[in-house]
């Protein structure tokens, strides 16, 4: 059973195509990294899957059913930089936002929801900051609040947009632990990621994207030098050439993307 099935997804901004005919099927219980250069449409891909931006063509199915009917199975961690952290609210309140669908319109959060939100904060090591104004949290702590909110959603398929960018080591470990837990629970995780060095450690599946789908599949098969060159247009530099990477055309964590 595929957790997510995307076919012929095309998106454009001002008539310029950003994504062209992207199709793939992500198996249930996997952790997929979406990899590609800046401007490859990585965030656009997940935003169009989530219907946050309009697509020209394309069909999205979640567990075999159209996306619109399966919204409650979706969890989402947006990029941290996309919200105003000076907003007058505290960490617990942000986590509760993950429960608004369950609480329902016109109603206030009940005790059970608040208890659940606190548990989610605890799971990311943030319970001590529940009443803290969000602007007074560090970048990593803010990211963990977003993770707790996603946890609170109690979803089956999680989308995360660059969760590792600008976070401290403790938060990085918290994110990895969370992804592993989700996988163990049979949940599916899809992550926009830009650091090539960590791809093999974090993800069991890789989706290589540069406006079009370059390749998708299990990490050892797809995360090859050849594929990366296709994705990044030859702008790949070796930090350390090792015999194995040269012979097998496999990248073992010694690759870096040279940005211009």
């Amino acid at each position, binding site marked *: 059973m595929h957790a997510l099935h995307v076919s012929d997804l095309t998106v454009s901004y001002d008539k310029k195509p950003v994504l062209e005919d992207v199709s793939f099927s992500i198996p249930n219980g996997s952790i997929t990294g979406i990899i590609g250069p800046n401007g490859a449409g990585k965030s656009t891909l997940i935003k169009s899957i989530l219907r946050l931006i309009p697509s020209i063509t394309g069909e999205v199915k979640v567990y075999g059913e159209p996306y619109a009917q399966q919204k409650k199975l979706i969890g989402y961690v947006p990029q941290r930089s*996309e919200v105003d952290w000076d907003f007058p609210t505290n960490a617990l309140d942000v986590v509760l936002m993950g429960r*608004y669908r369950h609480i329902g319109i016109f109603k206030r959060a009940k005790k059970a929801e608040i208890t659940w939100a606190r548990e989610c904060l605890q799971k990311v090591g943030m319970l001590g900051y529940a009443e803290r104004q969000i602007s007074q949290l560090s970048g990593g702590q803010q990211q963990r609040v977003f993770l707790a909110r996603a946890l609170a959603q109690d979803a089956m398929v999680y989308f995360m947009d660059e969760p590792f960018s600008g976070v401290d080591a403790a938060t990085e470990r918290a994110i990895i632990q969370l992804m592993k837990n989700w996988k163990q629970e049979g949940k599916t995780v899809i992550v926009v990621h830009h650091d090539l060095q960590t791809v093999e450690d974090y993800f069991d599946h890789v989706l290589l994207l540069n406006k079009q789908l370059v390749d998708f599949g299990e990490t050892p098969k797809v995360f090859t030098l050849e594929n990366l060159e296709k994705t990044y247009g030859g702008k790949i530099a070796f930090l350390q050439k090792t015999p194995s990477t040269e012979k097998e055309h496999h990248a073992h964590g010694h690759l870096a993307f040279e940005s211009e």
Partner: protein
Amino acid sequence: MDTLLSSLSNANFQWVLVGSLLLGFASGVIGSFVLLKKQSLISDAMAHAALPGVCIMFLIFEVKSIPILLIGAAITSFLATQAIQFIINKSRIKTDAAIGIIISVFFGFGIVLLTYIQQNSTGSQAGLDTFIFGQAASLVKSDVQLITGGAFLLVLISMLFFKEFKLTLFDPQFAKGIGLPVSFLNGLMLFLVVAIVVIGIQMVGVILIAALLITPPLAARYWTERLGVMAILAGIFGAISGVLGAVISTTIVGLPTGPVIVLSASFIFFISLLFGKKKGLVIRRVRQA
């Protein structure tokens, strides 16, 4: 003092007090949303744009019927927001310039129409110019009932959708992701702003009503880090300003209400700026020392 006491015992004035209190409260609550949506300037454009609407309706119907005039105000207010959006989307003009253009064009047109009305009609146009600076004393019972009922309804809507407004303001992407009707909620917030401007212009005037929307929540932000508390506090600050404005402007003959309301709100703002518990300048200095 005597005038004040005699005013207070006047039944019409008691209505005006209730109206200014509720209008101020609703402005503070809705203003909190406007402020966080970073639409302070747009709300000012909407207010200024209400004037031509009032004048056009008066020219068409030739009666000073408040509901008809206010419908005109709502239409041109709304048109102004759409015009701003259109300019931003279809040209390379930036938001601040687009707002600047629309404020001037609509308000200028309003003033031209108002001058034309004052020179060409007789008698019945008396008091149309109170829409510019507001005049609480000119309100009659039915006007105040409209303000009171409207303000009450707007506060009720704000309460009902509070949670959804909060998420839409803080993180619209996530709100959309969990299936909230974000476009509808944004539309509803726009409606609240148009509505409060329209019911408030008689008392506060088109030039200064945006200040009644923005100043109380700005002041409230210095006392709290929670949106719910901020909205209520902004409501209370708005209510105090509204009542002070109504009382002082009624006591001193010829003093328009809007400026007094805004001065009261600004006074509360400066106190908050200095002594606010959360971000006040004095508190910050004390903590640093």
